[in-house]
């Protein structure tokens, strides 16, 4: 179990949990980032923050501090095939 903020660029994982009380997480849930969803950390911005993640066929940027509550299961049996590139 790793916070999304500690994932390395290129690393995959399955979203294990988030904090639905927070505004950021509510926004991400509306975009379809729900527990069980496979996500990938694509890259960090040149200054190290924010992050660009990919899930459900879309690329979304969020700040490092906002990614701390998103817990990712990197050991989960992710589908080998990468999420669709938009």
């Amino acid at each position, binding site marked *: 179990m790793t916070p999304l903020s500690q994932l390395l660029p290129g690393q995959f994982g399955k979203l294990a949990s988030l904090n*639905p*009380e*927070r*505004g*950021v997480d*509510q*926004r*991400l*849930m*509306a*975009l*379809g980032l*729900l527990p069980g969803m496979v996500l990938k950390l*694509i*890259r960090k*911005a*040149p*200054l*190290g*923050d*924010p992050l*660009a993640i990919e899930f*459900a*066929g*879309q*690329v*979304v*940027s*969020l*700040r490092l501090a*906002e990614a701390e509550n998103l817990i990712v299961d990197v050991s989960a049996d992710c589908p080998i095939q990468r999420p*669709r*590139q*938009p």
Partner: protein
Amino acid sequence: MSTPEAGLLVALVGNPNTGKSTLFNALTGLRQRVGNYPGVTVARKSGTCDLGDGQKVELVDLPGLYSLAAASPDEQVVIDALSGNIAGDRRPDAVVLVVDSTNLLRNLFLASQVAELGRPVVIVLNQADVAKEQGLRIDIDLLSRRLGGVPVVLSSAWKGEGILDVRRAIASAVAKQTPMKRVVWPTNIAAALTDVATAAATDTGKQVSEADAQRLLFDTNPSTADRLGWTVTQRDKTLRSARDRVRNSGYNPMAAEPLVHYAHLRTVLEGVVTEGAGKAGRSAAVDRLLLHRFLGPVLFLGIMLGFFGSVFWLAKFPMAWIQSGVDWTKTVVAPPLDAYPMLQSLLADGIIGGVGAFLVFLPQILILFLFIGILEDSGYMARAAFIMDRLFSWCGLNGKSFVPLLSGFACAIPSLLSTRTIEDPKARLATAFVVPFMSCSARFPVYALMCAAFIGPLYGPGWESVVMVGMHCVGLLFAVPTAFVLTRLVLKVKPQPFVLELPRYQMPKPRDVLWRMWQNAAEFVSKAGTVIFAITIIVWALSYFPRDASVAERIKAANPAAAEEVVKAKVQAAYVEQSYMGRFGKAVQPIFDPLGFDWKITVGVLASFPAREVIVSTLGVTYSVGEGAKADSQHLRQAMQNAKWSEGPRAGTPIFSLAAVLALMVFFALCSQCGPTIATLAQETGGWKWAAGSFVYMTALAWIVATLVYQVVIRLS
């Protein structure tokens, strides 16, 4: 805001980056009206749409959004518009949901929420060409059946394909009124929703729809409760027990809505999309280059400098044409009125000068909006925000503040209009507040005059450029702490999370970009233009009256041998000196004394509150070198270099000492001297409060800093 000829109202709703505006333009053919929703700075765009059979409806383009949970003014407007809660607007007779064909699941979440409102809907699967390229095949008949028989059509608004199908589908939805199939709420959530609806209806005596109940139960934002007038004390207990009920059934109440909708949509979409062989999008590859750790920022700087550098260069030519057009008009209009000097001056200096004062901004505004349109529609704007966010987040702004701040170096007015791209209201307001600190092109002639007349001759051209660059940084130096203090201490609004979609790259559609550029320019002319015009006339009147003929006769009598031109300039100067403006300038000169300004500079400063570049021509008049002085005018420079204090403790010393020159430039760098900016700020922040605050703050800050500069430099030199 109703159109009498079209009885029906249809709303266009969709996620951002779905090509919704392109579809709107295609459907309405640019027969559009732009207004404002009451009480908020959200534009209401509507147009007339032909349904293909001669029937016409009013189509309203609602702001793009991902969810109906009200988190921003834009989202609240959509909810209110769809529920018919906007004063003067009807409830739409049908809703067109614009969906990105390459990402049905995410896009249909909003559609599924809209379905809860019970309006007939049309699903438009836009960007179908891209989906086809990617090898996606969508069974629209199956999707339509799964959604309860609502019309589902494919379109590529960019290419103009499928537009007629959309028109027909709207006609069919309006005629048949088929609602979209709604999600089935788990028993406990359904019961909780009923509890909330019943309690709210009982407490407020108002009708509470199912959609209202969902917003009340699922959102932390109290806007729906506030609209119904359901007070905290009334709702607190009901909502708590309803949310407990949801929690006991195994759902977090804050996550229940997306969980249930997405589970529903997965079954709806089962077998609808088949993936065949196709090209993967190129966006990921482009991002590897444009968002590269080292190359990304370099390319970013190159793109921005290229774009904004060309704003200066491209705008220079039309601005010069407008200027010479204005001057030419004056020479045509003025001579026949020689017998009526007051009318002549009102027309030439007041009216034509006033119109010219804002027309001259138009080229920069048009070009800037052209570039901003290209950046947005191509998808690069989101990347720019991604790259720059870290630099701005610490002082409460965000990556989207960058473009408005950069364009502020050209002109504050279009930059203020471009702050609309910032969703977070707090960051938007703070950005708008600091934009006027950016050293706009109207400050340039002031710096140029001072540097050419004093810094250059005294210290050499090297220092001239150092001071020029330095002056462009002064505003930035104060803008950042201002934003920091404003967002941390003054604005008590909760910061919005910075969640930003990095959309697929796309070729901007020229018609859309040009059309938006035109709309922004028209808005500027109609709103700011009138204010600028009024201020110019007022300042003209203050510096023209009173105008006693004896003043001219006295000057003529005192200089019998002087050339006609010299006498004319002296007469002009004498009139300004005894005008209301001149008298006021002399009266308030003591306020500007700590900055080292004499009454002539003071008059120049006062006259340039509507537009700062006016100082150059005002100094031309007060220093008796005649009207039409330019920053490179040799006479004006000499007159200023020779000017000495005639009385007081500084008598005999030059007025324009190094200290006074620097103080004057710093004053102009920081002071709020631009009528259009104030007017636009008021328009964009939804009231005069922030505009007045900006004026007072910037002017006070300019005075304090310029005083410090003068007092320190005068002691050092």
